[in-house]
Structures are given as C-alpha cells and as structure tokens.
C-alpha cells in the first residue's frame, strides 16, 4: 500500500498482487459523488435548473416512459435472476470493495423502484419482491452509484442474459437530469459543445493558432511541410477528433501522427471549426436529444465543407456513437463517396494504407520502446472495424505490430472483449472523482504491472482521449510515469519515413 500526498488522502491499492475479489466493505465509496451541475449548466441543456418540487412523480413517470420506449432497458430490468456472474467483473467494485459497485447491485437501485411502480407483484407485495419506494435516500444512492459506472459494459459480457448496466446508468442519469439533478462535468462539457463546437470550449481562432503552431513544430522536427488544414472546402476527408487532441499530451502526438499519415498518402483532408469535437457526451447522460444535436454538427460540417468521407480520430465512445448511431441520429449520409465506409476510423485508414503499401514504415524507430495496447471499452465492446470479425481488436494490433518490433499483450482476460476500463470513462474523468478513478484503474494496473515484470514494458498505447488523460493522471499513483501512456498514431507517426 502506498500513501500518496494528495490533499484528500486515500490509499492507492497495490497493483503488484494478482487480481482477486476484494473483501466487501459496505459504503466504501459512498463519499464519492461528483459535483452537481449548476443551475446555469442545467438550463443550457434544457433541464430544470434545480430539483423540482414534484420530482418523485416526474421521476417515476420518466422511468415508465423510458422502460416503455427502450425495450432493452425493460428486458434488463425484468430479466435478472441474481445469478451473480457479474458481481466481480466491475473495475470499480474490484478497486473499492463497495458492494453497490457490483453490477447487479447497481442495476437493483433502479430495478427495485421499477418493480414497485411498474410490476403487479411490486405494487401489491413489495416486501416479497425487493420492490421499494423512490425516496430521497434512494435518489442519493442513484446519484452516487450511477455516477460510479463508467458504462464500459464489461459486466454485460459475462451476464448470461446480456444485461447491460450501461443502459441502466444512462437511463438513471436521464431521469435525474429530467428532475433537475445533473452531473457538473458532463453537463458543462455538453453546454460547451453546443456553444463553441467542442468539449474544451476552444474558439475557432484559438484552434487556428494551435494548428499553425503544430505545422511549425512538424516542419522543424521533420523538414517536411505537413499541413493541418482547417475549414478547407472540397477536401476529401473531414477529420473529426476529440478536442483533447489539440490541447493535451500525449493526445497531440497522436494528432501529429494522423496528419503525417494523411500527408504521406497524399490525401486531402480538413478539420472543421464547428465540428471540432468527436466526443458525444450525450451518450453518457442518456440524452437522445443532446446526442442527436451533437451528432448533427458533424453532418452539417461535412455538407458545408463538401467532403467525400468522414473519418474519426482516436476517441473511444465517439467511435461507438459514430459506428452504431451516426446514421440514425443524423443520416442519411448519401452525399458521401460510397466507396468508403461511413464513418471510418483513422486507424482503419492507416491499416488500409499499410495493406496497399502506400506508407513507408520503419519500425526500428520505435526500438527504444516495449509496447502493449489498452483496448478502450467502447471500441472493444461496442464497435467493429475494417469489416473483419473482431477487427476493432485486431486492426489496431496489426498496425502496432507493423510500427513496433517489441509488442506484447496483457493477460487475455483483461484485453479484447474482456478489457478493463481505464477507470475514467462514461463521464467520470473529473478531479472530484479522483479517488474513484485511481481505484477503478486497479485491474488495468495489475495487468500492466504483471506484463511489465515479464517484459519490461515501457509504453501502453491507447486510442481514446479519456483513456489517455486518465492514465496520464493515474499511472504515477501506481509507480509508473505519466508519459508511459502513448497514442497509437504517435507510434505510427514516429515510424513513418517522410518522403516529401
């Protein structure tokens, strides 16, 4: 056990021991509720700006509406048989030991209310069927524990019925927003996307200045005039990437990698100053309206810039939304070139170019690194790539193995479809949840530590802005360096032999 010096002190778990089921500790993470959204943040999204007077009635009605409208949610609420298969699958349970972080217990917070008001048995003999009234205490638990779910869906892989806790937590957050109880981090970010086009709140002129700076840097480093075009009409590709790629490290090194690849392949492309964000936090709060509004910016930008293709940068849940829902939310996209998948992921573009022999790559440029890959939950469990079965798992690995001579995978029950969340997904990447984030990273840190002990791993690559920021923050808690997390496209860019 390591004591860290953070002001709100907590004990960082030990990652050098094997993954095991923790001792149960009631209410171990009850104190970890994120800041609530302010009146201003709520109003900007069209939600009530404080807890409304008749909140109970409205919440119950909303629960009925959602379980009627979303058949999946209803099946999930109806079909659990308490088999227990999910209990030790959540990284937040494994890291905190709080039994309410067992997926079934988290679902039950909603299920007991659903039973009370929407099932015959729950209405008549609630004490026999685990049905409970919606009370202030229950609402507090909802706020705390539905904001301790990163919607990573690992539990659903192990559930014999496929019950998806992410859907339950999304519905819970939507119900809470409807009665005026929002989460600050997600709702503030969504407000910024509506106002300025991206999560950061980066205005157009600042984006232009940032991209100019990157052009200078790459020219200085490589001697090649790689462009980072903005709002360039008639470009072939509109590249939509998380705004963290413009701002943070190691994200920006991945962004430079995308630009190098597209430059080398001679493909014309552009960013958009209005769709300057791939992320869609509307998913995290379960709000179809917000999700649709955010997705529509991308279509509007594609039409305005008259592009032929839309490509997404390294962002986990953005790829989930794009891959599964973009067409439903904002389609049709029949104005794009049908020869290419819509949407396409930047790693698919790179993969295709490698297959076609259009990139000259020298993996020895990364010989100083011994690399592993963290599968981001939304990519691994909720998407596909390159039309290959399991392509979302194999395509990034194939690319990494092409650009790195020393690649190793972590233990099989911690990667691929079984991957562990970084600990900061689903709208939880906020400093007020730092303790939860550190503890939730435990299973991934254990797998990394184990591989490191065997192969002296220097870097873990990822394709998600949240994962990258989360690991940069939590790696030092576990004795690693913050710069051991790296963008997949940084490794690609570094191995790319630039020719013009």
């Amino acid at each position, binding site marked *: 056990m390591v004591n860290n010096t953070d002001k709100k002190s907590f004990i960082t778990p030990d990652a050098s021991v094997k993954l095991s089921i923790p001792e149960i500790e009631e209410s171990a993470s009850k104190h970890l509720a994120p800041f609530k959204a302010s009146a201003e943040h709520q109003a900007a999204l069209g939600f009530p700006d404080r807890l409304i007077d008749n909140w109970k009635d409205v919440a119950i009605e909303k629960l009925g509406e959602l379980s009627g409208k979303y058949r999946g949610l209803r099946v999930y609420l109806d079909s659990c048989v308490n088999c227990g298969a999910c209990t030790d699958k959540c990284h937040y349970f494994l890291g905190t030991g709080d039994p309410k972080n067992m997926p079934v217990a988290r679902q039950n917070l909603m299920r007991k209310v659903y039973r009370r008001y929407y099932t015959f048995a729950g209405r008549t003999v609630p004490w026999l069927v685990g049905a409970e009234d919606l009370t202030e205490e229950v609402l507090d638990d909802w706020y705390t524990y539905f904001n301790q779910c990163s919607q990573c869906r690992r539990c659903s892989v192990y559930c014999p019925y496929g019950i998806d806790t992410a859907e339950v937590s999304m519905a819970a957050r939507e119900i809470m927003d409807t009665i005026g109880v929002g989460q600050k981090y997600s709702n503030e970010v969504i407000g*910024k996307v509506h106002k300025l086009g991206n999560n950061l709140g980066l205005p157009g002129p*600042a984006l232009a*200045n940032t991209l100019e*700076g990157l052009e200078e840097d790459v020219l200085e480093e490589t001697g090649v005039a790689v462009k980072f075009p903005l709002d360039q009409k008639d470009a072939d590709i509109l590249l939509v990437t998380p705004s963290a790629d413009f701002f943070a490290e190691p994200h920006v090194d991945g962004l430079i990698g995308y630009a190098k690849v597209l430059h080398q392949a001679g493909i014309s492309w552009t960013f958009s100053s209005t769709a300057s964000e791939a992320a869609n936090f509307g998913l995290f709060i379960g709000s179809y309206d917000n999700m649709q509004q955010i997705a529509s910016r991308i279509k509007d930008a594609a039409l305005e810039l008259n592009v032929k293709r839309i490509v997404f940068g390294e*962002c986990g849940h953005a790829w989930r939304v794009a891959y599964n829902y973009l067409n439903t939310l904002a389609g049709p996209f029949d104005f794009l070139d049908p020869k290419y998948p819509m949407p396409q992921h930047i790693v698919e573009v790179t993969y295709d170019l490698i297959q076609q022999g259009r990139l000259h790559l020298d993996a020895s440029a990364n010989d100083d690194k011994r690399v592993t890959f963290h599968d981001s939950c939304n990519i691994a469990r909720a998407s596909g790539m390159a039309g290959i079965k399991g392509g979302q798992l194999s395509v990034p690995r194939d690319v990494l193995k092409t650009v790195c001579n020393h690649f190793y995978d972590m233990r099989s029950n911690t990667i691929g479809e079984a991957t562990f969340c970084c600990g900061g997904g689903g709208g939880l990447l906020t400093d007020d949840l730092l303790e939860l984030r550190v503890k939730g990273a435990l299973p991934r840190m254990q797998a990394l530590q184990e591989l490191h002990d065997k192969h002296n791993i220097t870097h873990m690559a990822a394709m998600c802005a949240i994962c990258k*920021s989360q690991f940069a923050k939590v790696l030092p808690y576990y004795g690693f360096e913050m710069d051991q997390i790296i963008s997949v496209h940084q490794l690609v860019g570094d191995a790319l032999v630039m020719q013009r």
Partner: protein
Amino acid sequence: MNTLEVNGQQIPTDEEGYLANLEDWTRDVAEAMAANEDCSLTESHWEVISFLREYYQEYEIAPAVRILTKAIGKKLGKDKGNSKYLYELYPNGPAKQACKYAGLPKPTGCV
C-alpha cells in the same frame, strides 16, 4: 457559495477553487490560491501565469500544453520548454493548477 479569502475580502470561486468571476483576479489572489495548496510562487511560476493570462486575453481559452511549453522554452531556455519542467512547477498539472492561479476557468473535456 465557495470563497477564497484575500486580504480580508471574500472572493467567490467554484467548488474546486477556480475564480467565479475572472475580473476578480489580482496577484494577491494567485498568491492566496497557491498558499492554500502549499505552493509558493517563484519568478518561474509567474512566467507561466503571465503567459496564460496573455494568451487567454487574445484567444479566450488557455493555450494547448504544447504552445505553453514552447513559449516557456523561448522565455526561460530550451531546457525548460517541456512538460516535465512545467509539472515540477505545477505538480497537479500545468493546465489545471496554473490556470487556476492565473484566474482562468478550468479546462474541460477529456483532458
């Protein structure tokens, strides 16, 4: 309402200590914030704070980490133009901790 006490006055902040009104910023505000976090501001800290404030005035957002490191490298020497140096100054992250002391809003999103 959260506040920060500066020279006997209560200045409103958000839950994490970022200024609620950016115009409330003075050098004393920065000193008080730093003192609360057991950090004493040196000339090097002030170089970062001044650059953040200049950049914010022009672009209404904090600069990207890379822009900041480049600017500091130009001012203080190439050996200091990297994020390692900035993290030594601001262990909670230059983007967040230095923005706070500079009176700017906290960077949001996946950062």
